[in-house]
């Protein structure tokens, strides 16, 4: 309410903002006039005057599905903080953090995350949750891919029949995954049937629906959008017995405070801790849209999950390999994802 009132004041006294640097736009309520920037005070000390701020750059899928609307208020309450969520594509979110303009990122592109860590921009990555991708297309399925067990084969078939395929084309996590599948299919998607549209997942689904095209979607956004479109799942993801290549893991990474001393590192760590805590994981686990669970938390496990601390293809000294980690993932799915999902 305080924030909203402040908006009114700003709108009314708009002449006073002519000095841009005079107002840095902190989201503190007006009573925080003690000159503190707010980021120095301890969290949860009860003095409502100076809330800490956390800038979270994240993928649109976590935001648009409404998951963060469940998680963030609980975190804010617990840590007396305000979360400023910037919904972007995964590529853009990582770029924002790379420039030091976010405190923490929540994204889904393991390869790009590893690179981000290798370059020293992020520290302490944790697995948070996953869902999976699905290949969707028109009900009449002109390319005939329904029920295929390999996503790569399905893509190759689409390319062969030159059925229209809509690509996000925006360097998002979904886009990165799609390119990975093309890579695996051995086809270079070129031609008038392949359309890069540079839009978010929802727009892409709507556009694919309008043009009777195939596309790759994360399951969460597809479920959230399903009621507005006529597309159907033609190749399932690993949550429903589909190929493991369509797994969609989300990771949280605080920005390295040694690179950018101004980031709110302790709050970023608190956020990572919250998402991977039993409480945060429970919220993720119980979040549903239209009765469907969208994300499966996987931060907590009694068995070792070393894979989240090392690069995706790290061979662990010869014992582990990508196929081993895939096998572990499949086993995890078998144990934890209900049959009737």
């Amino acid at each position, binding site marked *: 309410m305080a924030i909203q009132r402040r908006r009114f004041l700003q709108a009314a006294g708009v002449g006073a903002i002519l000095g841009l640097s005079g107002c840095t736009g902190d989201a503190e309520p007006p009573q925080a006039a003690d000159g503190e920037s707010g980021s120095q005070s301890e969290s949860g000390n009860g003095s409502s005057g100076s809330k800490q701020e956390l800038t979270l750059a994240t993928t649109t899928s976590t935001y648009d599905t409404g998951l963060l609307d469940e998680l963030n208020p609980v975190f804010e309450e617990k840590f007396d903080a305000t979360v400023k969520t910037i919904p972007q594509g995964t590529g853009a979110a990582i770029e924002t953090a790379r420039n030091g303009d976010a405190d923490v990122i929540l994204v889904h592109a393991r390869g790009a995350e590893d690179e981000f860590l290798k370059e020293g921009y992020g520290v302490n990555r944790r697995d948070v949750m996953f869902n999976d991708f699905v290949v969707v297309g028109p009900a009449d399925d002109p390319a005939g891919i329904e029920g295929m067990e390999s996503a790569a084969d399905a893509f190759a078939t689409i390319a062969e029949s030159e059925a229209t395929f809509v690509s996000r084309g925006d360097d998002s996590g979904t886009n990165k995954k799609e390119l990975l599948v093309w890579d695996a299919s051995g086809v270079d998607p070129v031609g008038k049937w392949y359309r890069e549209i540079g*839009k978010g997942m929802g727009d892409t689904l709507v556009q694919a629906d309008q043009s009777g095209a195939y596309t790759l979607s994360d399951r969460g956004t597809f479920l959230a959008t399903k009621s507005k479109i006529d597309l159907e799942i033609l190749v399932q993801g690993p949550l429903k017995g589909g190929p493991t290549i369509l797994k969609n893991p989300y990771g949280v990474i605080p920005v390295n405070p040694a690179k950018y001393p101004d980031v709110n590192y302790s709050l970023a760590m608190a956020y990572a801790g919250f998402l991977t805590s039993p409480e945060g994981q429970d919220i993720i686990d119980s979040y549903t849209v239209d009765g469907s669970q969208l994300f499966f938390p996987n931060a907590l496990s009694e068995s070792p999950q070393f894979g989240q601390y090392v690069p995706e293809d790290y061979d662990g000294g010869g014992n582990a390999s990508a196929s081993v980690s895939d096998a572990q993932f499949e086993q995890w799915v078998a144990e934890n994802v209900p049959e009737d999902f």
Partner: protein
Amino acid sequence: MFGLGDLNLTYLVSITLVSLYVSTAAVLVSATLGLPMALAVSFRDFRGKAVVTSIISTGMGFPSVVVGLLVLLALSRSGPLGEFELLFTPEAMILSQTVLALPVLVSVALSAIQSVPQDLRDAAFASGGTSTDVALLVVREARYGIVTALLAAYGRAISEVGSVLIVGGNIVFSDGTSFTRTLTTAITVEARKGNIETGIALGGILLALVLAVNALGARFRDRTPSGGRR
């Protein structure tokens, strides 16, 4: 309301206020900078005047996303103005909208000012006016055109989406109040979610705002010259 069922009132009001706040501030800053610029360009003869004029009119068509990217580069913590921590704030949006609105304002104001007959400037000077008086007289004579310039700048600012999305970050707090989300960037969110109808309803609010501002301007313009300012 039409298609706005799933958006609560607090959210609607606050994104509308952010839109108004950012655009109004950007137009005020543009006017503060732009009107003296338009006067200077039309009164003074200097080398490169033609170049300046064509830069200004080129600026009218400057793509807003490019402006957004430039402002992003400048305001990023790793950029030259990073220490002010302005990125992802309303002030960053004001900055980028000012860059966009300024050329529109200056161009339209300039043509209004230049259409004031030389005879009137001469009369003001010969009546004992200083150069400031002459400038004020010209502004007064060009007031309809200047109001049009302000309205055009306002329209450019409030309907703009590319740059505010990039430099504002499209942030809404968890209590549903907007920090840097405007009507236009809220529309992109709805479009992304596939909620086309909600997006169009938000567009309706935006349109109503622009109409209201224009009606205000028209009201000012329609006051008779002698009645308006005696």
